């Protein structure tokens, strides 16, 4: 007999036991490991996807920030350029203004220096001229300059025409002791010229005219008589005028 029924039953039992054994030791552990690995891989893939999306988001954010930064930088550069240009123009204008002010100040200083120089020259020239004239007159005629000026002044009084002389005499007569006729000279006149002038004035007005002598340094060498709006004068200022003109021309040339 090919079939042994005890063996059939035993083999069926053996097979069921084997089913249980393999379920216990093979299928369950293996499937559990596979499931765990699949879950782990799925989690890793999900993490990677999340990381990828996060990286993409950060990349986009970075790109946007970069573009914004580039735009801001360009705007800042442009603004800085404009500000630098404006500041340069302002500094240039300021420097130009300062240069102009310095130039004007220098011009003023030069003008002032020239004026001072001019005054000094005039003063020195006057002193020199008078010194030379005084010395020359003293050496040649043994007559003081003051006396000579008084002579010239007296001669001028005498050379006045009739109408002028009468108007002048009227002015002289209106003088009194309280308001004497003023005789100004560049320096104090000695007694002799004063007496000569007193005499000439008395002669011209046919009256005793009170005179008051006064030294006036700005008169530049000469004598001036003022009475009731009338004035008779002589000085060497006209002689000095030509000298002054030539000196001014020289100083202007030096300034230019």
């Amino acid at each position: 007999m090919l079939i042994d029924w005890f063996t059939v039953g035993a083999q069926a039992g053996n097979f069921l036991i084997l089913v249980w054994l393999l379920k216990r030791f093979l299928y369950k552990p293996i499937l559990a490991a596979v499931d765990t690995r699949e879950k782990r891989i799925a989690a890793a893939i999900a993490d990677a996807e999340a990381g990828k999306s996060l990286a993409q988001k950060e990349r986009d954010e970075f790109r946007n920030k970069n573009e914004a930064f580039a735009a801001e930088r360009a705007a800042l550069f442009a603004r800085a350029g404009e500000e630098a240009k404006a500041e340069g123009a302002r500094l240039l204008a300021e420097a130009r203004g300062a240069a102009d002010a310095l130039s004007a100040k220098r011009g003023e200083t030069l003008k002032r220096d020239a004026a001072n120089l001019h005054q000094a020259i005039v003063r020195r020239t006057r002193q020199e001229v008078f010194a030379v004239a005084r010395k020359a007159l003293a050496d040649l005629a043994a007559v003081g300059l003051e006396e000579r000026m008084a002579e010239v002044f007296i001669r001028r009084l005498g050379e006045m025409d009739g109408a002028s002389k009468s108007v002048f005499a009227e002015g002289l007569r209106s003088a009194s002791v309280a308001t004497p006729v003023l005789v100004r000279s560049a320096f104090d006149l000695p007694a002799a010229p004063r007496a000569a002038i007193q005499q000439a004035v008395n002669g011209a007005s046919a009256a005793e005219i009170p005179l008051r002598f006064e030294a006036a340094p700005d008169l530049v060498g000469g004598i001036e008589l003022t009475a009731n709006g009338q004035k008779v004068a002589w000085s060497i200022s006209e002689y000095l005028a030509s000298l002054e003109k030539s000196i001014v021309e020289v100083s202007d040339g030096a300034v230019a």
Partner: protein
Amino acid sequence: MRLSSDELVFWRHGFIKVNGTLVYTWALMLVLAVGSKLVTRKLSAHQERSRWQNLLEMIVIAIGKQIEEIGLRDAGKYLGFLGTLFLFIAAANLGTVIPGYEPPTGSLSTTAALALCVFIAVPFYGIADRGLGGYLKSYLEPTPIMLPLNIISELSRTLAMAVRLFGNMMSGTMIIAILLTITPFLFPIVMTALGLLTGMVQAYIFSILSAVYIAAATRPAGPEPIPTPIPRTD
């Protein structure tokens, strides 16, 4: 000459006996159980894993996919029975390369026991899946006239499974034994190699037929609904 290892009796006590079939079966069970235990003792859930774990994972996953391809929806539910069926028969048949070994599947008692297990498993899974009424109703399909034929078919296919596996394995062993006596050593080697192929094919056929029978018992009556494609939302 023994036709089957049943005739190799080691111990007997009345009806109870320990023959070669049982001993070789126990040896196979020991190898399979201990081997599985050893490999699954240090399972890794990470990417890196041992070669033995890889091998077992490949085998288990391949069996599961094969079960799903046949039409059984929840492969895990049938993996224990069908997978063990395949592994036991395959291991029993591959053992023929060991000199002195006689495959338990070369015994009609073993193949009959396996066929009986399938014979019982089919209504077991059918009733579990469709209920008793639903399962019994399947014997009346397509018409009640087919009831006797269905019952005969149920019995005959169980017998066919048992005899097919037994015949193939027994004949292979017998042919090798005969060739060893009458031909040079080369031919038995070739036949042994061929026997390995035959053994694997028989293990595959036996387990696939079992899966088909279980699938037929658990499949709901009527034409299967045509699955409609679900539009992807991602």
